[in-house]
C-alpha cells in the first residue's frame, strides 16, 4: 500500500524531469551550432594599432627592462660573493688570522695580570696629541716576541707585548706606554706593511676572484713574511734611526717622557747584553746601544 502511494507521487516528477533534460540539451546544441561560425581567428596585424593605443607594447617593454635589471642585480650579487676584503678589512683580518695560527708559539691564551694598560696608554696617546686611535693590546707569555705592532683597520692597531719581558725589566706604566708608542710609530710608517706586501697582494686586496681560482698560496706566503719580520728579520738600521729621531722629537716636549725613553733603552740594552733569552732582540730592533747614541746630544768642541 505504502509503495503504491510513493510511486504515484514520484512518477509524474520523474517524467517531468526527463522532459526538461532533453529540452535543455537540445537548446544548448542549437546555441553551439549558432556560435561556431561567428568565432574567427584573431588577426594581430590588423589590430596592432589598437594594441599600441592600449599601451600593451610599452607595458611589455617595461616588464622586459625590469626583468633585465633583476637579472643584472642577481649576477652582481653572485659576483660580489667572490669579493676579497679591501684595505679597510683585510689587514685586521689577516693579522688576527696570523695570531690564531701562531697561538702555540705566542702563547697568548692565558690568564693575564691586569696592568690597566687601556687607561695608561689612552692617557699617554691623548697627551701626545694622537687622537681617535683604536688599539688592541695582546699580552703574550713568551720572550720570543717582546713587543710588536701589527697593522689593523684604519686608525686601529694591534700591539703584542710580552709579559716575561715586562717582568724581567720591571717596566712601569709610562715605560710600557713609551714602548707601545715606539711600535705605533713603526707601524704607522708602514715598514711592516711594505715588507709583508709581496707582489700580487696589491691586486688581491679589494679584488674579486669570480671565474678564477683563489690563490691561497699568496696568503700562505704573506703569513711566512709575517713570521720572518716578527721572529727573525725585524727592522733595518735606517728604519730604527727614523723611528728613534721621531721619538726624540716627539718626547722632547716633556723631560719626564724623554728621560723615560732614554732610561728604557738603557734597560733594554743591559738586558740584551746579559740575558741569553733576549739576545734575538738585537736582530729585530737594532740596536738599543745605537739608539742611545742617536739620542745623546752632540758634544760641541769648545775652542
Amino acid at each position, binding site marked *: 500500500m505504502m509503495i503504491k502511494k510513493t510511486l504515484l507521487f514520484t512518477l509524474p516528477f520523474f517524467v517531468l524531469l526527463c522532459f526538461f533534460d532533453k529540452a535543455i540539451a537540445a537548446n544548448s546544441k542549437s546555441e553551439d551550432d549558432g556560435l561556431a561560425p561567428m568565432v574567427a581567428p584573431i588577426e594581430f596585424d590588423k589590430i596592432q594599432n589598437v594594441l599600441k593605443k592600449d599601451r600593451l607594447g610599452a607595458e611589455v617593454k617595461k616588464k622586459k627592462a625590469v626583468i633585465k635589471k633583476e637579472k643584472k642585480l642577481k649576477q652582481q650579487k653572485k659576483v660580489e660573493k*667572490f669579493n676579497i676584503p679591501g684595505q679597510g678589512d683585510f689587514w685586521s*683580518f689577516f693579522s*688576527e688570522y696570523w695570531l*690564531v695560527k701562531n*697561538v702555540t708559539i705566542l702563547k697568548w691564551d692565558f690568564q693575564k695580570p691586569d696592568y690597566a694598560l687601556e687607561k695608561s696608554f689612552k692617557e699617554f696617546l691623548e697627551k701626545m696629541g694622537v687622537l681617535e686611535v683604536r688599539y688592541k693590546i*695582546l*699580552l703574550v707569555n713568551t720572550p720570543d716576541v717582546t713587543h710588536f705592532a701589527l697593522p689593523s683597520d684604519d686608525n686601529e692597531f694591534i700591539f703584542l707585548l710580552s709579559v716575561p719581558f715586562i717582568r724581567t725589566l720591571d717596566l712601569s706604566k709610562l715605560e710600557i706606554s713609551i714602548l707601545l708608542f715606539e711600535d705605533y710609530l713603526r707601524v704607522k710608517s708602514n715598514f711592516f706593511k711594505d715588507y709583508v706586501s709581496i707582489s700580487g697582494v696589491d691586486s688581491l686586496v679589494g679584488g674579486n676572484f669570480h671565474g678564477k681560482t683563489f690563490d691561497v698560496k699568496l696568503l700562505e706566503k704573506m703569513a711566512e713574511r709575517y713570521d720572518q719580520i716578527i721572529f727573525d728579520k725585524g727592522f733595518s738600521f735606517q728604519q730604527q734611526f727614523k723611528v728613534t729621531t721621531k721619538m726624540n722629537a716627539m718626547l722632547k716636549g716633556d723631560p719626564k717622557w724623554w728621560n723615560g725613553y732614554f732610561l728604557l733603552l738603557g734597560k733594554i740594552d743591559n738586558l740584551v747584553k746579559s740575558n741569553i733569552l733576549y739576545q734575538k732582540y738585537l736582530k729585530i730592533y737594532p740596536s738599543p746601544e745605537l739608539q742611545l747614541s742617536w739620542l745623546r746630544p752632540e758634544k760641541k768642541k769648545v775652542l
Partner: protein
Amino acid sequence: MKNLSLLLSLFFLGIYSPYAADKVSRVVYFKKLFGHIHKNPSRYSQSLSTIGCGHPIKVLVNKGREEYGKGFYKVKVGPYEGYISKLYLNDKKPNCFQDKYPRFFDNLELSLTDMYYWGKLYDQYVYGRSTIQ
C-alpha cells in the same frame, strides 16, 4: 589538602628558585667573527660553546638584573645558558665579515680549533681608544 600543600610548595619554589626568575628580555646578535659562551661572567671562564658572527642571542634578566661581573650578560644560546661580554653584542643584525666575503672566507678552510682560538682572541685583547676630550 595534600594536593593544596603540593601546589603551594611548587608555587614558592617557583618564586625563590634562581632559575625560574630568568626571563628573556630581548634578542641581540653577536658581532665579532667568533666568540664564546662562558660558564661564568669572566673572559677567562670555561667556554660552553663557540658561536659565529650574526648568531642570535637571548639576553636573560633576573629580577631586573641584566649585567653580571664586568659588563657580562647572562644569555641563552640554543641549549646553553652562560655569559657573554656586552662589548660583542649588537641590537641589530651586524654586517658580518663571513657574509661580506663568503667565498674568500670559505677558501681559508678554518678548522674548529682556529674558530675556537679566534673567539678566545677577542676575550684576550685589552681594548682602548684615544679620544678628543
